[in-house]
């Protein structure tokens, strides 16, 4: 049987970050997949050792642009665990609010990108348009659309004023209606159901083997969420629930992410109500980090962010270990892509919501025997969009 090697990456137009996958194919079916990382590796763990405890927060933010506040929260949790610091109540609510706002904009970003991979460019435009008000809230509260610099060891750096709370509430109310429309459009669309159901399935055993986390795990019925299992910030002070699905395919992953958005809005609204009543400091002063070890975790939009720090009582970390969620989610390709067709690979890859920049640190199909190029990145994207068109036709929908 002829085997064809399909390197994906490193520069594919819609995976903005460079990554390299080699797909081994037998005709139309994928037989094996290999991941070569390193194009985004910036040596952050080593850089951490040369910065002061406070400076590390700014460095850590820039691990990833989309989960920009997840890493600082996990890092601050780690140091607060080490030094046994309890942050003030107001800071807890502010941390949850910023974290959940980030989850909202990240999931909307994903919905947009996934829509584009399938050929639904209107979904892309809508989702990113609805993202903008959230970025406006961020700018109003923190001063920047991304890289908020809100977290510090011992609390948060900026407060949310009462006047802003009303504006945030208004924007979120408008967003709820739009989210409901978007969710309905995605979940009720028969073409999307035909395209995504049963594609890229991950079983519970796969999730356990690879240690996958986040919506990827929850879509396969594995009920884990750091916000509930290891509560911090305000997550055990407000009412919300963890969303899981049972099927483990790309459709379930979309469902989990969309429904999580509504839970995020619930958390933010409850936190805003409490914030209006609670007075107090937003941070406690931390003068000295004793020697010891600390572990901090946070449920980023993609899964569990894990930070381990070790201190010897000086002003810099001795060791700072960072594990981003995509590091354990991306290898699940081995389980979800094998047996699938090449046209589905782009959407399966997208279903994990990979964030390559978090993880470290483009697609061409070659004939294995002659090394002649068969398809390239844009062709694979077209294959994916073409499959959607075929399914649309089968179901009797006219091409828009």
């Amino acid at each position, binding site marked *: 049987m002829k085997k064809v090697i399909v390197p994906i990456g490193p520069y594919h137009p819609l995976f903005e970050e460079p990554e390299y996958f080699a797909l081994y194919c037998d005709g139309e079916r994928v037989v094996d997949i290999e*991941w*070569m*990382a*390193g194009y985004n*590796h910036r*040596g952050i*763990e*080593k850089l951490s050792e040369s910065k002061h405890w406070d400076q590390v927060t700014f460095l850590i933010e820039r691990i990833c642009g989309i989960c920009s506040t997840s890493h600082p929260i996990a890092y601050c949790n780690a140091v607060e*665990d080490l030094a*046994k610091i309890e942050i003030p109540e107001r800071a807890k609510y502010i941390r949850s609010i910023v974290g959940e706002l980030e989850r909202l904009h990240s999931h909307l970003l994903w919905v947009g990108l996934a829509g584009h991979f399938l050929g639904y460019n209107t979904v892309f435009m809508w989702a990113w348009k609805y993202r903008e008000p959230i970025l406006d809230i961020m700018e109003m509260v923190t001063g920047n659309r991304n890289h908020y610099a809100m977290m510090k060891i011992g609390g948060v750096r900026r407060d949310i004023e009462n006047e802003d709370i009303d504006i945030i509430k208004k924007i979120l109310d408008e967003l709820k209606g739009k989210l409901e429309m978007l969710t309905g459009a995605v979940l009720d669309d028969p073409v999307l159901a035909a395209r995504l159901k049963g594609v890229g399935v991950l079983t519970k055993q796969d999730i*356990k*083997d*690879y*240690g*996958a986390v986040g919506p990827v795990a929850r879509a396969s019925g594995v009920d*884990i969420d750091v916000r509930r*299992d*290891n*509560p911090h910030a305000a997550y055990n002070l407000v009412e919300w629930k963890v969303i899981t699905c049972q099927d483990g395919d790309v459709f379930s992953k979309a469902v989990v992410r969309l429904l999580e958005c509504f839970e995020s809005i619930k958390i933010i609204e409850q936190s805003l109500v409490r914030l209006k009543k609670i007075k107090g400091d937003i941070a406690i002063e931390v003068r000295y980090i004793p020697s*010891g*070890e*600390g*572990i901090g*975790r946070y449920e980023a939009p993609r899964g*569990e962010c*894990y930070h*381990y720090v*070790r201190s010897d009582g000086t002003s810099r970390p*001795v*060791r700072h*270990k960072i*594990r981003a969620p995509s*590091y*354990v989610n991306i*290898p699940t390709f081995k389980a979800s892509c094998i047996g699938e067709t090449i046209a589905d690979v782009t959407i399966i890859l997208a279903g994990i919501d990979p964030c390559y920049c978090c993880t*470290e*640190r483009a697609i061409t199909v070659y004939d294995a025997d002659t090394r002649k190029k068969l398809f390239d990145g844009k062709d694979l994207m077209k294959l994916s969009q073409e499959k959607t068109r075929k399914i649309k036709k089968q179901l009797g929908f006219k091409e828009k």
Partner: protein
Amino acid sequence: MEIIEQVKEKFKSKIKSVFFHNEKRVYLEIDKEDLIDVVKFIFHDLDARFITASGIDNLKDMEILYHFSLDSDGIVISLRVFIDRDNPCIESITSIVKGALNIEREMYELLGIKFLNHPGLKRFLTDEFPEGFYPLRKDSPGRAEQ
């Protein structure tokens, strides 16, 4: 803590020390020879989730911490293993935990630790550095000589 009592009961003196940093963070020290048995117990019998592994260069020796999560209780168990710095090598746990493949490759290239019986021990994140340049070691220079 009940779960840790189970581990101590099963392995007795092989657990060299148990440190409770608080009720959710436990550090167990073991010898590298006992690593596979303890990992098997924690991963299969206690149904823990493998989070990651951290390699640390202590100049006098090297240390690897294997982090596992007991999600139903929110507890993180970290297994601490010390290895020799001049010839750092240890058994790979990929036979039990598939998800440890990439982190062991990363520790190999950034710290120089060899993992025995690893199915494909080669560089993962960097490939143009000269042999012997291990960035995360404490005595490594800031940049590699190109």
